[in-house]
Structure formats: structure tokens, C-alpha cells
């Protein structure tokens, strides 16, 4: 038997939990002005970025912790490593050049294999640094840029990044956006020129390996007029007994008549505080499609937001959240309709099990100019047992009379009748329940490329295993 991931249904959580001992990695703990300056130096930031970091730190210090969601008391910023440089050369474009233990980590997660099979480009981040980035030559020839954001900052796209960086998610947005602005490290920059359609997805994989560390990657994607891109983001981490923090930031700029599909399969370990911020701005006739599978983390605050700024802009959000034992996952999405004829569609499923808490929050804002806009929100929850909790908290703020807004919520349990029916055909009780749960989450899996759908179903199986009793 090999350790490598295969398409065969592998139900071993150890698959994500393995880790190689850290050797010689360089690490900065805590959060002070000196530390932020030190990170900035490490990064060789341009002057504006150094100032931006320091300003963000000030905002961080002045901003209160969120007081409305799951508890984040277990998170002690003084003991979180704000920067961890893996024992690797900064960035490699050849897989062979990535150091062995890091390469083995990604090999076991199936990353380079996926690249060969079905991706147009791959980025891999290990702790605070991007260790690998590559894009297929034919795609690069079309003018598509896919690189780590730090080298891009110093290259020909430097001005473009300056113009867009944390403009959608300003550091004043909330405390962890400010933290991100201060200590961000790694992440991807993607640029798709006008009219270019990238037929196969680009993928970026984040691995947080160091105990008690934070990961603060920044993803900036610009899709120009009439262009198309599917970007896939994967995350995982081995389990530790100390708190880890993920406070990444994703900013997506979707130009006129462009389409961007952003898919995430997040499988952080159960000691992770996932306080991530994602936002898209969509211009006239453009469209953003969020596909989101949230499985891991101890606590999540995650609400991707679409700002529909141009006439006829559209947003679709399809998500599934699975909260198991010890997990409190607060997820959802937000849409702001700022222009006429815009539309948004939200379809989410949340699953809770073994005392897990899954809360779905949505906020739809329809501003006065957004006449003839439409919004449909549908969320369903499934509680696998009696000790788990699921809530939905929808909010609507509609400021025009000419809008068509709908909301539907359903909460259910696994029916004994359905389990009996499936078992009567010969599947075990565990399999019957897993089938019902993965069927419930099919809204997301059917939107994912096959191998990711398989991975997601594996994650559901891992979570469902031992559900009986």
C-alpha cells in the first residue's frame, strides 16, 4: 500500500494529518511594530507596502474583537507565529527544486499529480511562503499571469497590485482584515487579459504546517473584460494541540462581461481559527461564481461577499459547511446589489454532527439604484444527531420597491426511513448515512471538477465515520 492519494475512496484522516518535522525554519512569534517591520524587511517590501503594514497594525490595535460570532477566546495573538519561513528557497518554478520534505507533503496531497492531469497552473504555499508556482506555457502565452504576489509586487504588475491591494477589503473592514494588512505573506496574483478564456482551472494549495502559526496569504485576481477563469483553492493542515490561525484575504476583480469561478475545498485541522475574508467586485454583465466547501477548522468566520457594481452583474454562491465534534463554523455570504438588473443566487447546505455547530448567515443588500434586481437565497441544514446544532440567520436590506427577493430555509434530520431503505439494498448503516449526507451536499460536489468532488466526498466519509452509536 502506498500513502499517495488515489481516486479510490480513502477514508483516512491521517491522510491530511501527517507531518514532517520542521527543520531550520525561521519563525517570528507575536505582533508588535518591530515584528511587522521585520516581516516587511524579510519581504523586501516597496516603501508603500511597509507603510501600509504599519498603518494596518495601528488599525488592528484600535479595533475590537468581533463580539457577535463564535468565541475566539482560545486565540492568543502573542503566541501565534506571524511569520514562518519554511526551510526552502523562496520560490521555485520546477517541482524538483522544492525541498524533499515539503515536496513529499504536497505529493501526498496529490498536488503535482493534479497539475499534470487537469490544471493549467499550480501554486503551493507552505506556512508563510509560496514554495512553488507554475503555469502551463500555452496559457502563459495568452498573456495570463499566475505567480506569487510578492514577486509580482516587484515586477511589471507592481503598479496594478498597488492599485488593487486591499481596496476591496480595506484594513478597516474588521480586526482580522487589519491583521492581514499588517502581516500578510505569500498568496497568488492572477491576471487574465481581455477576452482570454482559460479553459482549465488554476489551482493554489495552502498548507499550514508549523504548530501555533498563522497563515496570512493574499490572493488577488483580476479578470479583464470578457475573460473567463476558474480558480481552485485548497487548504489543509496537520492537527496540533495549540491554536493556529488563518487570516487570508481574497480580492477578486471581475470586469465587464467577464466570469470568474472561485472554488474552495477547505480542510483545516480542528485546532484552526479560520478568519478569512473574501470579496469580489463585479462590473457590468460580469459574473462571479463561488463554490465553497468548508470542512475543517475549530472556529470559522467566513462570508464571501459579492459587490455587484455594474448593470446586469451576477453572483452565484454554492456552499456546504460540515461542522463535526468541537467545531463552530459560522459561514455564509453577502451580496450588495449596487446597479440595475443585477442578480444573486445563494444555495447552501450545512451539516452538523457530534455536537458541531453550524450557523449560516446571509446578508443581501439592495441599494436604491439596483432596480429590477433579483435575489434568491436558499439554505438547508441537516443535523445528523440530536446533540448538534444548525442555525440560519438571513438578513435582507432592500431599498428599492422594484426588486424580487426570495428566501427559503429548511432544517432537517437524517430520516430513519431513508437509512432503512438504503440498507435494505445491502449497504451498511455507515454507508447509508454517508450517502444521504453526500447526497445532501451534492449542490456543491456537482459544481466541482471530478477529482475535487471525489475528495469532498472522501472528507464527508471521514467526518461521517463512526457516526453510529
Amino acid at each position, binding site marked *: 500500500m502506498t500513502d499517495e492519494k488515489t481516486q479510490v475512496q480513502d477514508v483516512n484522516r491521517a491522510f491530511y494529518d501527517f507531518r514532517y518535522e520542521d527543520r531550520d525554519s525561521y519563525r517570528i512569534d507575536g505582533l508588535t511594530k518591530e515584528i511587522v517591520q521585520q516581516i516587511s524587511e524579510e519581504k523586501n517590501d516597496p516603501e508603500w507596502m511597509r507603510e501600509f503594514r504599519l498603518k494596518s497594525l495601528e488599525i488592528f490595535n484600535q479595533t475590537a474583537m468581533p463580539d457577535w460570532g463564535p468565541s475566539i477566546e482560545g486565540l492568543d495573538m502573542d503566541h501565534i507565529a506571524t511569520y514562518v519561513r519554511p526551510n526552502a528557497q523562496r520560490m521555485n518554478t520546477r517541482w524538483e527544486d522544492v525541498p524533499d520534505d515539503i515536496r513529499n507533503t504536497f505529493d501526498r496531497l496529490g498536488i503535482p499529480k493534479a497539475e499534470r492531469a487537469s490544471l493549467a497552473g499550480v501554486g503551493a504555499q507552505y506556512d508563510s511562503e509560496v514554495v512553488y508556482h507554475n503555469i502551463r506555457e500555452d496559457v502563459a502565452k495568452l498573456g495570463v499571469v499566475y505567480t506569487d504576489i510578492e514577486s509580482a509586487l516587484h515586477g511589471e504588475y507592481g503598479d496594478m497590485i498597488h492599485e488593487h491591494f486591499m481596496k476591496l477589503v480595506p484594513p478597516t473592514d474588521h480586526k482580522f482584515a487589519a491583521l492581514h494588512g499588517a502581516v500578510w505573506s505569500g498568496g497568488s496574483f492572477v491576471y487574465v487579459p481581455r477576452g482570454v478564456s482559460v479553459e482549465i482551472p488554476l489551482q493554489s494549495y495552502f498548507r499550514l504546517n508549523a504548530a501555533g502559526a498563522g497563515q496570512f496569504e493574499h490572493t488577488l485576481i483580476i479578470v479583464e473584460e470578457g475573460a473567463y477563469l476558474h480558480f481552485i483553492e485548497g487548504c489543509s493542515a496537520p492537527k496540533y494541540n495549540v491554536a493556529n490561525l488563518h487570516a487570508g484575504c481574497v480580492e477578486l476583480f471581475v470586469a465587464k462581461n467577464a466570469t470568474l469561478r472561485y472554488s474552495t475545498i477547505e480542510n483545516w485541522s480542528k485546532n484552526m481559527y479560520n478568519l478569512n475574508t473574501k470579496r469580489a467586485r463585479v462590473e457590468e454583465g460580469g459574473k462571479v461564481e463561488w463554490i465553497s466547501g468548508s470542512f475543517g477548522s475549530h472556529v470559522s468566520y467566513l462570508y464571501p461577499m459579492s459587490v455587484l457594481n455594474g448593470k446586469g452583474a451576477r453572483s452565484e454562491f454554492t456552499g456546504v459547511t460540515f461542522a463535526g465534534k468541537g467545531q463552530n463554523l459560522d459561514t455564509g455570504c453577502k451580496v450588495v446589489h449596487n446597479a440595475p438588473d443585477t442578480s444573486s443566487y445563494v444555495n447552501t447546505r450545512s451539516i452538523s454532527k457530534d455536537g458541531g455547530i453550524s450557523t449560516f448567515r446571509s446578508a443581501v443588500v439592495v441599494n436604491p439604484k439596483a432596480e429590477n434586481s433579483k435575489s434568491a437565497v436558499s439554505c438547508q441544514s441537516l443535523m445528523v444527531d440530536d446533540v448538534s446544532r444548525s442555525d440560519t440567520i438571513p438578513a435582507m436590506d432592500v431599498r428599492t420597491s422594484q426588486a424580487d427577493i426570495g428566501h427559503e430555509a429548511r432544517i432537517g434530520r437524517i430520516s430513519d426511513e431513508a437509512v*432503512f*431503505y438504503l440498507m*435494505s*439494498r*445491502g*449497504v451498511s448503516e455507515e454507508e447509508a448515512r454517508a*450517502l444521504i449526507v*453526500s*447526497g445532501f451536499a*451534492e449542490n456543491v460536489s456537482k459544481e466541482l471538477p471530478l477529482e475535487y468532488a471525489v475528495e469532498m466526498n472522501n472528507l464527508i466519509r471521514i467526518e461521517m465515520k463512526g457516526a453510529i452509536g
Partner: protein
Amino acid sequence: MANSLLSVSGLRAAAEEKEILRGVDLEIGEGETHVLMGPNGAGKSTLAGALMGDPRYTILGGEVSFKGENLLEKSVSQRAGAGLFLSFQNPVEVPGISLENFIRTAIEQGKGEKLRPWVFHKEVKETLAALSMDESYGERDLNVGFSGGEKKKAEILQMLLLKPSLAILDETDSGLDVDAVRTVSRGVEEFRKNEKASLLIITHNAAILSALKVDRVHVLVSGRIVKEGGPELIEEISRDGFSRFEVNEG
């Protein structure tokens, strides 16, 4: 008599604390076709469910052996694995899993081995065609949005693909139009082509039985078998109803 396949003796079962089966005896041999009739509420579905292991029913007493083994101590999936099948009176809708994938998963789990997808797909296609069902039903979510008749056909489809030793059909013919009854009958005949396959058909309607060679008829009233006989009993019941079998409560 053929080799015994199912042997039920003195079976008593309750739902919600209410005793419904009050001592049922039933013998089915290998390769035989049996019919179970009885008035509404007599306990026919309860008997079918109790045999399959429906958790809503509590077994109060009696014994059931299937292929010489104690059926009652097996889990539902083990009963299926042993070759028992139940065509449900009201099949459940399960969103997010396709009919074909589900049957494949069930067969693979039962056998503990992988099927070759394209070989299996072909078999599904042929079976769908034999049941006058459009190919697309294989891809549709299990029973979701199926009409009453389509659900019944999908049950027969599963029976034909799973190839059990004993299939219990709980009113698979009710609610079907004339053509569909014929289609389902054809499916049942197809199933009977395997000489060892046995059937227990629960029905209120003689039509589905006309093309089948029935070996034995059992009449269930108020949770007990009150009469057994040959196929001639079907006609008798069609003519006279169940009133002459009614027993005094108590």
C-alpha cells in the same frame, strides 16, 4: 416440496407498542411464488417490514430462518446480503444520489468487489428499456420526483439488478396504469426465469398474478394467517372478499 428458503413461525411484532402480527407462520421454498392477501390494515406491510428489519417494528416473539440461518439477528444490510429484497409500498426519495450509482454502490458493497462501470451501465440500460423506462432515469436522483408508478418500476429495476433469492413485493402493482402493470409483470417474469428465485407478492389485485404460476396463497387477517391454499384462492377472494375470514378480536 422444494428446499426451504424462508421459514416463519409464530412471529409476533408490534409498532408503537401495538401488537400487529400475532403469530404468523409461513413457509416459502426455493423457486416458489407465493401470494399474500388480506384486508387493509391486516399487517401485510408490517410482516414484510419485520422480515426486512424495519426499525419501526419491534419483534415480540417467534422465529424466522432464511437459508437455514436466524434472520432476526441480522442487520438490515446483512439480510439484503443474504438475498432478501423488499419492494417498498412507498419508496423513499433520496436526493443527491443517482439511481444507477446507488444500485452500483449497493451491489459493490454486497459483493465486496468493484463492478466494471461500463458493463454495469449497459446492464442498467437494458433493464431500464425492458421496463419501458427512459435511459435518463438511471441518472436521476433516487426516486426524487418520480411518479408513483415510476417509483414502483424503479423498485423492480433494483430487484432485477440486485438478483435476490427472495423478493417481497409490497403492492408493487397498486397505483399502476394497465400498461405499467403489464410492464411490471414482465419484470417479475424475468426475475422468475432464475429457477431458484422466490417471490412473496402482496397484492389486492389479481391482474399482476394472471401471467404467473402461483404456488401458494396465504390470507392474513388481523395479524394472523387464517387461510392457505392454491391459486384457486385468489379467485375466491376476488369474488367473495375477506369477510368470511374475519375473526373475532380478543
